[in-house]
């Protein structure tokens, strides 16, 4: 299905919430997913892989502590990214096993000044990602399982032009997986809510 970016972000937000993220992290995860999609990356598939792994964990298990280590051993990239964002950026950093590390990139980008040639390089075993204030470009393979990640900061980055996409194309399978998680945020209907909850009239006869 072909979605607008905002529509994609709204669906992803429900999926994050459905997988147990707090509202604040849900906002962050969904905006990061939208930003990755904007750069033409397979963001929907990445969200599904991330949420399938985190689903059922307590957020405390995947949240970094002061030493950037997760209590449960595996880091959530949205929790890492949000923490970096709160700090206004980060120095060079080595992270232990991290799920879908590309999700850190949009948070890094937000801390950069577009007027300066600064940036970050995020590296994992099979690939790397260059991050500037307004571009995210990947070379190599996307990791399919948690990987160790290195983040390096540059002050003389020659940012590559990255392809920008205005729409999101999702396979039926990805769409179904996101909708499955999203469905958990909906309250089951009751007779009372049906009659009173929405409030608009059922008939339009005047």
């Amino acid at each position, binding site marked *: 299905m072909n979605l607008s970016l905002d529509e994609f972000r709204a669906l992803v937000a429900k999926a994050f919430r459905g997988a147990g993220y707090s509202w604040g992290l849900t906002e962050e995860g969904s905006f990061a997913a939208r930003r990755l999609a904007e750069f033409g990356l397979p963001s929907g598939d990445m969200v599904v892989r991330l949420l399938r792994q985190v689903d059922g964990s307590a957020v405390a298990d995947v949240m970094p502590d002061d030493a950037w280590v997760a209590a449960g051993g595996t880091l959530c990239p949205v929790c890492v990214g949000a923490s970096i964002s709160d700090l206004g950026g980060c120095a060079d950093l080595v992270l232990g096993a991290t799920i879908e590390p590309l999700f850190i990139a949009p948070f890094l980008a937000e801390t950069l000044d577009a007027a300066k040639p600064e940036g970050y390089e995020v590296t994992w075993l099979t690939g790397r990602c260059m991050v500037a204030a307004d571009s995210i470009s990947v070379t190599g393979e996307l990791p399919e399982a948690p990987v160790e990640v290195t983040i390096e900061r540059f002050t003389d980055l020659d940012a590559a032009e990255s392809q920008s996409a205005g729409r999101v194309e999702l396979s039926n399978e990805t769409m179904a997986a996101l909708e499955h998680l999203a469905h958990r*945020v909906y309250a089951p209907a009751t007779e009372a809510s*049906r009659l009173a909850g*929405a409030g608009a009239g059922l008939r339009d006869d005047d």
Partner: protein
Amino acid sequence: MPPAATALRPPEEVMRLERMGSFHQSRLSFMRTLLRRMKAESWVFERPRFDIDDNGVGTALYTATTPNRTYTLVAFAHDLPADMRSDRVIATAWDTTFALHDGVPTEADVERLRANVPLQEAGRVSGSELTLSRANRSVRLWSTVVDLLAEGRQPEADMIDNVGYLMRTTAVYGSGKFGAADRQSIADRPELLAPFQAEMLTVYLIRTFVMDLVEHLAKVKSPDAVVLDPAVRRRFGIGNSTGLGMAPFLITHPRLINNWIAAREQALARVRAVDQASDSEVALFESYVRRARRTVETWHSEHEIQQAKLASLTADIDLLDAHLESVDLRTPGAWDALVRWAQLELSIEGQELVVSLLLEPYGHLVDELAATMHADESSPARIDGSQTVASVREQLATTYGWALELDWTDKTADARAWYVSEEKLEPRIGERHEEPVGDYEQPLQPGRDAARMFADLQHVDPASTLGAFLRAHPQHRHTARRLAMVEQSPYGEIRDNTIDASMLPIDLLRAKLSFFGATHFDPRSDRWVRITMFQGAPFPHELATADPDSWTYPEEPAA
């Protein structure tokens, strides 16, 4: 140069639900912004296609051409059996369905839209469409008007005013919904920079189509049918039914809402700072007061809440008339004095009407503020995690003091819960202590959430950082972000409890709809409202010779 601004009314005064639920349209309303631009830029309007059969079924295209591009309303008219007509957004069939296409649609575009637009959830549009909308006839008025025109007669003014429109939209979707173009992808166009301009253009063109359709069906009925007299024709607006779906918007877009409210407050401050009004400005204001009385006289509601508000509004206008007899508005500082008088003597409805009326004579001071009413919401506001817990507590106490003082153990304080229903995927509001909805609560109660965060902050070292606190308490992250936004956007936060037992969702709806430019708010319960849009507005072919602003109040009766 605008005169030096007097103090703005503080957010603590303006951002109360009761006041927001009393806002009126003004020069800064989005319909008026659109009409002023259309007129200033001499937009060209055409109807390249009107293939509607004798049963009122078919397709029509209406184009609006700006100096740079063309937008096309693609209209599909259906023959809907009466028993399928519903006011609900989530219905299954409508009398008419619409999309606003970006450019001039090809035949293939029209057929693609025909296969989608008449369907609700299954219907998809593309990045080449800006909006999607559906509308139903007013059963009360439609056939009467067709019959009268067929008999060669015009409908009576009173009859029109009782309803206000021939068709009522159930929703106008934009901003990427159902696959339409993202706001971000069109926001660099000057004509779409102000909020909801594509939606307002859609409704404006729908109104034109509806009037053409009713005249067409009268002609089918009788070859001797007449068309509507131009003045009678302008009396018809487009209705809209708005339910809870719109209410969360006021809470989920603090940066945008701040810019709406701040623009209006800034406009008021500029007028209050006018040293001395000219004779013509005073005359214009007094004329608008007389016309506003006509608005109230033609404003009907069967709902007891609105009836009480209309009664006090009528009394307010009497008081205002008497007051204007006793003061000289040409004296220095007269507008500021009038605002102060209104604050003491009028109901909140009346006070807010005075605010809107005061802007009318001062287009040269206030209209430019319309360019400040958009907001970039394409990324979440950053949280400064280096702040100390002590400083965050202080900020919370300043912004959310009212919420920290409430007793949240009282069941009336958190009586409500906002949730999304599984059945229709629409926002609803439930009774937390009576229905199993609390676990599905949406984050639409900033006051309570601020109180919860404040309580948890009590137990941590005041010198520790907000960042560390949020890693340990991620459930407060949305509140921390909101606090950061409201520091920058003080009019973006409602200073009232949005889950209180006595909260009226219609107050949220009215605040938003008033900024659209809606009139004749007619609540049908505490959670949905009917309104009229573009009533009195010149039609596209009249814009060249019409005033794009003076239509929002009825004409003064001839002396």
